[in-house]
């Protein structure tokens, strides 16, 4: 065992040690917020959706916008990890576990929102009994379940060798249940070349498969909206637009979680400033994609200003939703790009600040996209006004706290840095090139040299 590997195991496993005061305090606060959210939902369950700000005209709001937002974050996590793996970017190694964890937990949280949003949660199973393939909601459910399975598998697959390390560590009997847990999860891993080869192959195959799966999931999410005749949703670009926004917010969320975990558990040796800067470059490039997508969307619509588009663009740029719109454009697209562009703000603090801006702005964007389209009058009536009530805000904040809580639990149960992958990088390359680009070619059946 090399010195690096020893330090790595110590550092990474120190995260999982008995919780300190700070940890317990954070978990306590998160539990309290989750409990408050559950109470707010119980009020809604008893009285009906009348306790929300939603009404017949603006019939979706804060719940649906956060559904899109949170699933988007999940999607960004998976995609980033998968893309970096497929392109064999070695710097990915210490951060992919984090990204995959964010993906799975965010997906679980996001999948709750549609059930919270429906008027008859008691009849939710009707979706499986009477489901129609023609409905975008059913596409959505299929997509989310598929993605859930894939991202769970992807996270689990790459944890197997680490589970074996933990199994062996806890073999001494100082924690019986942990030993049993990791033994179960390690599924007989013994570091044999054959296992390594299989893992290399299957993780690469998963990384390749999960990219189109994730893209389709978020496109289908957009289809729920773009299959309607509403101004602002009725657009062919909405699917790609949602996908781009999802990666953008997902990468930003991963930067934030990475920076927090790095700081809290002193993982600076393994997650270096360079990692954050690389992620920052990724974010900066995505901000350009987003700016391009927005120009494509709003220039083509605004130039012609057809019928309802005039109302929609006016309410976005000068009306009720202008604060959300301009915060998104300036604070969420331009400013983060500038922060990453200028060398002396391109440090950990600067990039984290840019990421916070991006996450907030994408939340605002999801909100105004949903509310603005529903606000455009369909018939001669006054446009409605919507604002989330305390119930909606409490439920959403509670679900974010649940996200934090699940992250906290994950940190204590599983190594947040992929020990075996980082160790592999520090060790001299072996004969077995399980992750060389050649493997991608072999899987895809392309002509190897």
């Amino acid at each position, binding site marked *: 065992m090399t010195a690096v590997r020893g330090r790595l195991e110590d550092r990474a496993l120190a995260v999982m040690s008995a919780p300190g005061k700070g940890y317990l305090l954070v978990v306590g606060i998160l539990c309290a917020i989750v409990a408050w959210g559950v109470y707010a939902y119980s009020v809604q369950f008893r009285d*009906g959706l009348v306790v929300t700000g939603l009404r017949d005209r603006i019939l979706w709001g804060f719940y649906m916008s956060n559904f899109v937002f949170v699933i988007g974050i999940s999607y960004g996590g998976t995609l980033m990890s998968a893309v970096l793996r497929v392109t064999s970017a070695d710097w990915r190694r210490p951060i992919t576990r984090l990204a995959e964890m964010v993906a799975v937990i965010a997906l679980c949280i996001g999948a709750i929102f549609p059930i919270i949003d*429906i008027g*008859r949660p008691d*009849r939710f199973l*009707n979706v499986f009994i009477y489901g129609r393939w023609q409905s975008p909601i*059913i596409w959505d459910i299929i997509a989310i379940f598929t993605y859930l399975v894939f991202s769970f598998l992807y996270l689990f697959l790459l944890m197997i060798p680490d589970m074996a390390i933990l199994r062996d560590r806890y073999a001494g009997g100082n924690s019986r249940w942990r030993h049993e847990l990791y033994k179960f999860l390690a599924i007989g891993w013994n570091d044999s070349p054959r296992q390594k080869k299989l893992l290399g192959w299957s993780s690469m195959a998963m990384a390749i498969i999960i990219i189109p799966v994730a893209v389709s999931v978020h496109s289908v999410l957009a289809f729920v909206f773009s299959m309607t005749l509403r101004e602002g949703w009725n657009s062919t670009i909405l699917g790609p637009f949602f996908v781009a926004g999802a990666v953008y917010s997902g990468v930003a969320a991963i930067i934030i979680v990475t920076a927090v975990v790095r700081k809290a558990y002193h993982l600076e040796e393994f997650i270096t400033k360079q990692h954050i800067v690389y992620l920052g470059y990724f974010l900066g490039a995505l901000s350009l994609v987003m700016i391009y997508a927005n120009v494509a969307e709003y220039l083509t619509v605004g130039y012609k200003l057809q019928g309802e588009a005039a109302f929609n663009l006016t309410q976005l740029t000068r009306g009720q939703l202008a604060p959300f719109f301009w915060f998104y454009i300036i604070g969420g697209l331009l400013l983060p790009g500038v922060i990453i562009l200028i060398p002396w703000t391109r440090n950990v603090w600067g990039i984290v600040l840019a990421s916070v801006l991006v996450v907030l702005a994408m939340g605002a964007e999801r909100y105004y996209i949903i509310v603005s389209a*529903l606000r455009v009058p369909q018939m001669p009536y006054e446009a409605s006004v919507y604002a989330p009530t305390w119930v909606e805000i409490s439920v959403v904040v509670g679900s974010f706290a649940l996200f934090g809580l699940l992250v906290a639990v994950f940190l204590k149960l599983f190594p947040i840095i992929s020990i075996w992958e980082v160790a592999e990088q520090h060790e001299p390359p072996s004969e077995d090139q399980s992750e060389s680009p050649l493997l991608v070619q072999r899987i895809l059946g392309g002509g190897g040299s």
Partner: protein
Amino acid sequence: MNDSNNRDSRQAAQPQPSRTIGRRGLLRLLGVGALSIAPFAFASTAIRSALGGNQTRSMGEVARTPDGRIRQWAMVIDLRYCDGCQSVDRPPQCTAACIEGHFAPEPMEWIEVYEGDLPGGGSQFIPTPCQQCQNPPCVNVCPVAATFSTPEGTVLIDQDRCIGCRICMAACPYDRRFFNWADPPVPPEAHLAHYDPEHQVPARKGTVMKCDLCPDMGRAGVLPYCVQGCPNHAVYYGDLEEDIASNGKNVVSLSRFIAQNQAYNLKEDLGTKPRVYYIAGHGEAVGRDVFKKGRMPTRWPWERLVEGARKWKR
């Protein structure tokens, strides 16, 4: 080059099949994976048959003309005769009759009288029921087939199946769907009614409702409440198949009436193919002054009976 590579790998793979998985192996694996989801296509059918009953509830047999053709319910609204009930100085009477007949909870106006602007100034009143589209965006998007098209050309909702996701409301381009945001404020006698998608009484919490074009009344030979309620006889109800319609006073040949008066559909450009037709006008046939704006607000007659119930605005 490519071929020889593959052949090599196949030969190498045969003695130890688990070592490498080539292109064929991968394709086989993907094929098995794809096949494994096939049962899901039949799962919902199996569950439905196990639960006994694929059908939504519906009241009667399909209505037929005397010679056996299925009736195609339709409505024509003659805007030349609609003055928003300004002349009788009351809230729109079509809406009022509909609310009383269906115990429609506040604030639902299944037939709502909108006031639209005229190009040359002034306004027109547009009574708007569900347009009963033949290419209904709402039916397309429903995840559980709670809203469905009938052979008679109407669009109905089964409130016993609706999960309240409201995507149909998002899909409707006419703002003609309503949601029960709480326990609906309806009088006690509504609960005595026999519920049916053709007669949505009583309203159910957390589900979507709308005008059903009263096929139960048409079948019984009675004109819908809104037609009966209109003091100016501006609303015609009838059957495209037998080609006949009535406003309670006159009987017209429906297709000829539509054609001769250049009737149109709302938002024709969307291609929803509504069954509700409009004849352009602004109440001129009943002497309405287009510059006299406004109509009386709709009222729910059982306001006193539902005091204390949780109500909501639109």
